[in-house]
């Protein structure tokens, strides 16, 4: 009550715009903090680039999941399978076009990578649409059933990958010119990691533009906050949701391609392995927040890389620790999304 009366007595006073800088400052602060521990600046740069690359990949995989959750209150525990599926989809391209990968041409190599990405996104997008229709749609509203049934979808799809491509790990080769590293002085940056950072940044910027500058983005942001009101304004949120689900699956597929070339081995379980990090990222970022997901991804990946260098055995535990600390600081995640 008091703020309303205050408002009427002092109507010229502008409400303050809160920009939440704290979580954003966390990333550079962490990077700087790690520097003295690591000692050598060149190792630090290498680790930071590796961390950024990994962060971008995790972001690609996590962003779709967090949006789907925000928009429809649906959590897809089977999301990891789209990562695996995207990774395996590269085989469709790498098989027939092996020559492009072996060629010592940046153009052909990048074209091959691009083709892999497009194929993987198409495959995972289509499977995502089927998954949404068959697995997810019948269980709206019940989190327990969602978790169970999407787990079931994960088992079945993972097994289907085994049936299609066999159960043993498949090695894949990074295109020729993407191998090796850029060396500047005594700083070593693996080429592929730089490419991964570039692709991740492009997708992030693209998503930001889409979310902030387009009507569909407005609808998504509004829908995350209050889907019912979006319907009451006359928009069919179902259609929006299906497209976000498909886009999220395709992004996971893209993340899968990047991840596959990073590991250079394909296994059906690779998606589920990385899902642990994805979940940590979503929790840290705040369920439903793309910005939080971005910051969270980089944070988690940097911590994993720094700790992996300093005390290799504690790498995964360190991420649990980061999650616990963030949750103690902000129980709803770094950028909590206002809901209803």
């Amino acid at each position: 009550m008091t703020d309303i009366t205050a408002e009427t007595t002092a109507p010229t006073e502008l409400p303050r715009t809160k920009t939440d800088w704290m979580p954003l400052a966390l990333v550079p602060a962490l990077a700087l903090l790690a520097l003295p521990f690591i000692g050598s600046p060149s190792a630090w740069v290498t680790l930071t680039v590796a961390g950024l690359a990994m962060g971008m990949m995790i972001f690609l995989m996590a962003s779709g999941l967090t949006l789907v959750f925000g928009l429809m209150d649906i959590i897809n525990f089977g999301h990891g399978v789209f990562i695996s599926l995207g990774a395996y989809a590269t085989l469709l391209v790498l098989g027939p076009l092996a020559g492009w990968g072996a060629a010592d041409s940046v153009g052909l190599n990048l074209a091959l990578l691009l083709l892999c990405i497009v194929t993987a996104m198409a495959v995972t997008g289509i499977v995502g649409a089927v998954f949404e229709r068959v697995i997810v749609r019948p269980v709206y509203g019940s989190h327990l059933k969602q978790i169970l049934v999407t787990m079931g979808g994960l088992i079945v799809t993972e097994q289907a990958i085994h049936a299609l491509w066999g159960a043993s790990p498949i090695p894949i080769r990074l295109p020729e010119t993407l191998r090796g590293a850029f060396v500047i002085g005594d700083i070593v940056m693996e080429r592929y990691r730089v490419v991964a950072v570039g692709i991740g940044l492009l997708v992030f910027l693209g998503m930001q533009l889409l979310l902030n500058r387009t009507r569909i983005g407005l609808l998504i942001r509004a829908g995350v906050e209050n889907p019912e009101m979006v319907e009451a304004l006359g928009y069919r949120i179902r259609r929006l949701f299906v497209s976000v689900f498909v886009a999220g699956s395709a992004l996971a597929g893209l993340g899968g391609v990047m991840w596959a070339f990073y590991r250079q081995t394909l296994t059906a379980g690779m998606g589920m392995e990385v899902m642990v990090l994805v979940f940590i990222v979503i929790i840290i970022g705040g369920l439903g927040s793309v910005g939080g997901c971005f910051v969270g991804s980089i944070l988690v990946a940097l911590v994993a890389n720094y700790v992996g260098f300093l005390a290799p055995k504690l790498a995964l535990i360190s991420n649990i620790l980061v999650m616990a600390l963030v949750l103690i600081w902000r129980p709803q995640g770094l950028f909590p999304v206002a809901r209803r």
Partner: protein
Amino acid sequence: MSEPLLRLQDVHTHIGPYHILHGVTCDIPAGQLTMLLGRNGAGKTTTLRTIMGLWRASSGSIRFDGRDITRCSTPSVAQGGIAYVPESMAIFTDLTVRENIVLAARSGPVDSARLDWMLGLFPALKRFWNLPAGNLSGGQKQMLAIARAIAEPRRLLLVDEPTKGLAPVMVRSMIEAFRALKEAGETILLVEQNFYAASALGDNVLVMDDGRIVHSGAMSDLVADQALQQRLLGLSLDAHQ
């Protein structure tokens, strides 16, 4: 006489195991402001939500502009020309004021004359045009919620308790805004607990109790008849003076 803009015929609504509306029958004539009064839990909000398709009527019919919309989904009800301002206001706090309005205008950019008219009604919104709506005060949020409903011409506005929790000075400016909307020829169904606001605005009045319409007529008749007020609205009169 031709059919009114909106007609509810024996509408029953269940929410989970609860039977909330027990046969609501009423007419909302075009171009007028109809007040929907009643104590808490009488079923006013449920009536609005049932019209919007946010709850499904279990039986009965809702006709809007000669068309049966009982089974329509919420988006198609809205596309038919009904705008809804819920009690919670439900503005999108992460979006700026401008974005809230842009989103409400389904068919494209808001034309500038309409925008000027709208911002004339709610001048505060102009000042906060590019700020996140979450930063607005309660009264300003309510203004934005109503502005959003009229961002494009609509056939019918459903507004749920727009004066709830507002300071008296805000209540007065809200009443002014609705008066202006009335003059512009809008058809409005307004849920109100505040009899002062209701009597200042309403052309017609509907009173609900226990999931039914127990009285309908001209507002002026109800204002004139103290005994009827006492019988229908009881204590709620004094409580909101």
